[in-house]
């Protein structure tokens, strides 16, 4: 079962206070970067839920996020719905789509699962790229931000919006934790460790996977709604598989299956990207080298590396044996 070690609590507190500190001190662009990190963090939390805890490595999450953004914008601007109603409907749509994708792909494992989700994601990308109703490859303008005027908050102020995203991220983190601790989460862990045994125990395996994927899809949809409100413009680029690939990199870079790690990864990735792109146009090269270096250190991402440093020796050995077994099992499934 998923539990928080003191170290994880400490990391969460540091991240949270760091975000608050930035929100109240940063200049204009610092705020933009903070918001970008917070939205990416929601997406990678959603991805960690399925990939880290369910072994379902998805390349459809960028597309789910984009779908949420498109549904929100279309419902809010073309259908003229209230932003809150439009957002709820958009999240419901991504949850439903996620559930269906999860259900269809539930029988596939490993690379096959990755490719099946890629297929669905790219179909979505091609659809929005070609549909002139949704602006085709030019994208769409005009999503409005939520109106929180009734409690005296103006989200058009970039600090308020960043804090709003932080609050949503906090709620989603708690939800993700609750899911992992619920019966569904335990079934999911069971399925990841030994699918055959869980099936023999009478568990409806595909249902568990689909439910978790649907919940994760809803989270990705929320990230999409926020991204649309943040940028105030959406384009099919959001749905492209490279967005999912980048999110996956962030999850693994931070620490797969730790919930906290992907948050660390999101911070590291976005900050690294912005800092490096000012120094050189070849910043991908450096990001690539960092990725390789992190993986070569044999830790489970940045956060895994930190955890390993702070853990007593015996614990570390058990952990390393476990990861090796997990790895074997996943390889076998593939």
């Amino acid at each position, binding site marked *: 079962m998923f539990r928080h070690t003191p170290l994880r609590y400490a990391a969460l507190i540091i991240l949270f206070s760091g975000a608050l500190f930035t929100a109240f001190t940063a200049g204009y*662009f610092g705020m933009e970067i903070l918001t970008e990190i917070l939205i990416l963090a929601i997406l990678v939390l959603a991805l960690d839920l399925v990939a880290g805890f369910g072994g379902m490595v998805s390349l459809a999450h960028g597309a789910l996020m984009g779908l949420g953004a498109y549904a929100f914008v279309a419902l809010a601007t073309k259908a003229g719905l209230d932003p809150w109603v439009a957002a709820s409907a958009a999240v419901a749509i991504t949850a439903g789509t996620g559930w269906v994708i999860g259900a269809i792909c539930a029988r596939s494992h490993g690379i096959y699962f990755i490719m099946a989700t890629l297929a669905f994601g790219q179909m979505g990308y*091609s659809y929005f790229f070609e549909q002139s109703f949704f602006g085709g490859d*030019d994208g769409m303008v005009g999503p*409005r931000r939520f109106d929180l005027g009734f409690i005296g908050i103006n989200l058009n102020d970039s600090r308020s919006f960043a804090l709003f995203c932080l609050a949503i991220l906090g709620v989603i983190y708690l939800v993700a934790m609750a899911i992992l601790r619920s019966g569904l989460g335990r079934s999911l862990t069971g399925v990841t460790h030994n699918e055959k045994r869980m099936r023999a125990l009478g568990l409806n395996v595909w249902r568990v996977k689909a439910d978790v994927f649907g919940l994760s899809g809803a989270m990705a949809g929320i990230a999409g709604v926020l991204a649309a409100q943040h*940028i*105030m413009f959406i384009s099919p*680029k959001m749905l492209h598989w490279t967005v999912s690939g980048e999110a996956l990199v962030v999850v693994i870079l931070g620490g797969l299956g730790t919930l906290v790690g992907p948050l660390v990864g999101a911070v590291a990735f976005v900050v690294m990207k912005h800092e490096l792109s000012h120094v050189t*146009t070849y910043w991908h090269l450096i990001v690539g080298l960092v990725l390789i270096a992190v993986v070569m250190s044999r830790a489970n991402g940045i956060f895994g590396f930190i955890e390993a440093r702070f853990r007593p020796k015996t614990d570390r050995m058990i952990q390393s044996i476990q990861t090796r077994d997990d790895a074997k099992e996943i390889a076998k499934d593939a």
Partner: protein
Amino acid sequence: MRKTLTAALTGLATILAAQSALAERVNVGLLLPFSGVYASLGNEIEAGFRLGLEHFSDDLGVEINIIREDTEVNPANGLARARKLVMQDGADVLVGIVSSGVLGAIRDFVHGAQVPLIVANAGNDEATGERCSPYITRLSFSNGQVNRPMGRWMAEQGVRRVYTLGADYAAGRQMVGGFTEAFVEAGGEIVGQGWTPFQQTQDFGPYLAQARASGAEALFVFYAGGEAISFVNQYDSFGMAEVMPLYGSGFLTSQLYVNAQGESANGVITSLHYVPTADNPENTAFVEAFQASIGRLPSEYGVQGYDSARALVEAIRTGATDRESLANALRQVSFEGPRGALSIDPATNNVIQPIFVYETVSGENGAMTQKVLATLPAEADPANGCVMPAPVTN
């Protein structure tokens, strides 16, 4: 809510503008793709832009400070960078934008923030049509502008039945659409159209075979970048030149790719707003300078950057250094440049320029060169639903 946002941005813009007006310095936000598929275009535009500043900004008395940002050809990222340039770096004017998607994304922002934007490439018709803005001045081209004259010209040459092919995205549809409209109007017939999935098509064989089977007299296409090279090479390898001569939008045989196409491009006839062999003294000087600093011939992208710099300098010379006056002055620039006589259409803020019809032929020592067949007179785009106040004349 949109209004409050605009108001907020306007307020901020005024403050920043007031600050920058004090110092005799103009902050230029250069917003181009420096990574991703269009990196070569971004680099060429920047090279042209810097060359233009070097040539024209002597004794200007105003310091021009360039801040570069990479759009990565991603609309969302482009918008974030545009906001950063304006809100944080205090850019007085933005220059650049290669892809129409990025231009569409930042349009409302620059309009709302009242920051002048010189478009140095992106050609989507709406930007100087229904979504035009007094703050957006385009020094490059519009998709329709480059191709409409070609439709008429081909009809005049007696070509009657044409098959068209194009990359399936907004710009591709507009480029081919501009040609088709004018060609049909002039009495031509489109016997069939093919659209290839954008950036997903490596093999044009199936589409070429279809074009061939259509029995058309000629083929008109729009492709750019890597696709243009693949397409021309594959067109040639199928021996299509013997049965169906190739015409197209001039980006197909841009100076940037023509060396990679080599002999395959021989005899292809296209239309564009610039050719390196254009015969005028401004162009001779530009080509020489570009070759001296970059080491190869300039393409239309280079000249777009060069002319953008010149337009900016001319605007500053009228005494404009803050956003409002720069935007106003940019709408009224006109000069004789490497492309010929340029001016800005006050109704749409799109550039008015002659269009060259040229044939790509093999030149000295194996390099491909351009033979200008006709120089079609400059004409303004139709307003396409653009409504905006006229510029304030000095």
